[in-house]
């Protein structure tokens, strides 16, 4: 009996090994499987029915996107860039696909997934990927690279950096906050202390002080940790603390951490009447509907627009290397359009125009 068990165990192992080796040996069988698998994948991907088997040909415009550490549905910059890629794929009749980065050391490899298949354009998201993108762009001159949030120091013809003056969006939001506050206390609940966040935060403070010299701004970054942009619990607690200390307009900037802050502010009994919140990156009225009770606007950087515009340029061949400055601005006021006084709206509009034409400088340098 015992021996039977042992034999059964071993034969199971042998069978497994055989099954495994046969599947790798028989090319015809597995290639058939491959095609079925690709079809499945094409329907699950948010793209057209095209696949990437003929990206090398000129007719099919193939877009690849590599996320920074994080997921493509992060309601933040990765998601915005991906939406831009999808939009570009739709308008050009092309094809878009993404790979999510788990480990920063995989950047080069993840880019190579796309270059191996001769993709026409590759979007890399996040400043951490700047170096890997430059290296890849030099290695694959026939592919055009778009680096979101990456300032390109050296001119490479097939590499365009999509950068944003976050400080300007922060400045406009801060200006609005400075005019809206009754307590003259503003708060900021921020993700990790890294350049894009710092620019938003410093811009916000500068704008608030320009609008209202009596205002004080409380600035708190998430403690250094792996989850600096994914800690809504901390974001909520910090927002609550700032509310308790009298801040009545709070700028929450930092992925999931900031979203936690927005949701906590929305729960306040005074939300939308005496207490307001301001979102970041996208129009968070749509991305975080829980925040609607307090969300007067969002300091936007239009990553989706910038990405799809640049991809369109890649498709029609008009793209240039170097840096492309994307648009920033304030999201619509939505339901708060009637709450925000007309003179405030007019003043903020003026600031936005001034920032755009350069007559107003934020004074933010890193």
């Amino acid at each position: 009996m015992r021996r039977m068990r042992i034999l059964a165990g071993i034969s199971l192992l042998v069978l497994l090994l055989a099954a495994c080796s046969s599947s790798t040996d028989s090319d015809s069988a597995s290639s058939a499987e491959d095609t079925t698998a690709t079809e499945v994948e094409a329907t699950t991907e948010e793209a057209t029915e095209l696949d990437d088997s003929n990206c090398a040909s000129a007719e099919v415009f193939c877009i690849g996107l590599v996320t920074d550490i994080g997921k493509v549905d992060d309601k933040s910059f990765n998601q915005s860039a991906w939406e831009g890629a999808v939009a570009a794929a739709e308008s050009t009749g092309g094809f878009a696909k993404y790979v999510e980065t788990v480990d920063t050391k995989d950047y080069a490899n993840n880019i190579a997934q796309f270059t191996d298949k001769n993709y026409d354009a590759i979007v890399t998201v996040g400043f951490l990927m700047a170096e890997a993108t430059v290296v890849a762009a030099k290695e694959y001159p026939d592919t055009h690279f778009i680096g979101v949030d990456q300032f390109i120091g050296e001119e490479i013809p097939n590499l365009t950096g999509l950068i944003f003056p976050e400080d300007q969006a922060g400045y406009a939001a801060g200006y609005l906050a400075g005019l809206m506050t009754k307590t003259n206390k503003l708060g900021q609940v921020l993700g990790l202390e890294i350049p894009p966040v710092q620019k938003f935060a410093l811009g916000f403070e500068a704008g608030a002080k320009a609008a209202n010299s009596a205002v004080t701004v409380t600035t708190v970054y998430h403690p250094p940790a792996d989850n600096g942009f994914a800690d809504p619990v901390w974001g909520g607690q910090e927002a609550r603390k700032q509310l308790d200390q009298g801040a009545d307009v709070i700028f929450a900037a930092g992925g999931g951490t900031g979203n936690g802050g927005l949701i906590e502010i929305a729960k306040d009994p005074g939300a939308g009447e005496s207490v307001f919140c301001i979102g970041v990156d996208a129009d968070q009225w749509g991305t975080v509907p829980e925040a609607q009770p307090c969300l007067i606007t969002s300091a936007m950087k239009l990553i989706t627009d910038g990405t799809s515009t640049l991809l369109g340029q890649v498709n029609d061949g008009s793209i240039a290397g170097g840096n492309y400055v994307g648009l920033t601005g304030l999201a619509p006021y939505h339901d708060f359009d009637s709450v925000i006084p007309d003179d405030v709206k007019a003043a903020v509009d003026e600031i936005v125009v001034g920032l755009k034409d350069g007559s107003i400088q934020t004074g933010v340098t890193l």
Partner: protein
Amino acid sequence: MSKFLQRHQKAVLSTLLVIVIAYGFYFWDSVRTTSILNFSLSYALPLILAAMVGIIGERSGVVNIGIEGQMLLSAFVAFFAAVATGSLIIGAFLGMASGLLAGAFLGIAAVKWEMDQIIAGVVINIVAAGITSFYYTPGQSLPAIVPRIEIPYLSQIPLIGQVFFNKSIFVYATLILVVVLQVMLFTSKWGLRTRAVGEYPSAADTAGINVYRTRILNVAIAGVLAGTAGAYLSLDAAGWFERGFTAGRGFLALAIMIFGAWNPFGAMAAALFFGFASGMASQLQADEVINIPQQLINMLPYVMTLIILSLAAGKVRPPGAVGQPYKKEG
């Protein structure tokens, strides 16, 4: 009562001292004191619950390193169950049920299969991280928010009223639980059995206590608390689920449990202290009173914990049989 005071002289005195200092600060700056203590409590709450999970487990002889995973899984289940059913209550209960399930797994694996307890815990952590990430669907919102319940009269007390008596059900439940657990652990039959099983299982066995059943049941029931902590995180504290968003709180809770010398009250004090240190760190950053980069300020809670422990340690001892699967003789 006097016996209690005598036995816990130090604890009572230091509690009184903390209260006096807190009120001292309250009269100096009521807004900041209240808000920092509020921060401390909400920071500490999941840590307290999770530390209770650890305490019940280790007191009965089972290391639970899977608290992190249990919380993450229940936070996930609670959130998506609440979204799907439109009811926070159903969400919370299903979250607690998933905590129970994870706890039962640990209990059965560690006791019945005599699997290595740390490995069983690590398995829970990885599985939870994998499942909650793999099956996460974006774009969901909770149907409602967890209401604040203001306790009449008590909430009018200066400072304490605002910090302790104007909170959600999770806070009240946790505070009651800590008291109940402290009393049960040291005075009830269940507590005696639990500690016997964790300290000296063979003696407990001789005395007629079913070591296996006690351990499995305790670890499973503790899972409900981990589930509550998870439900609190996603339904109340954040109102949101994010991949991996327990962010090491389960591991921190283990540290808190040891800091609190495997005692419910001790662990609560340790968690509150840790929450307070974090609140102070964020306040120092906000007020810019000292010109030190935030990275260094934010080390404060961790450094202070290490210093306090190294000054005070040496006296506490973990339960005798913790980490060792029990094997009946013969």
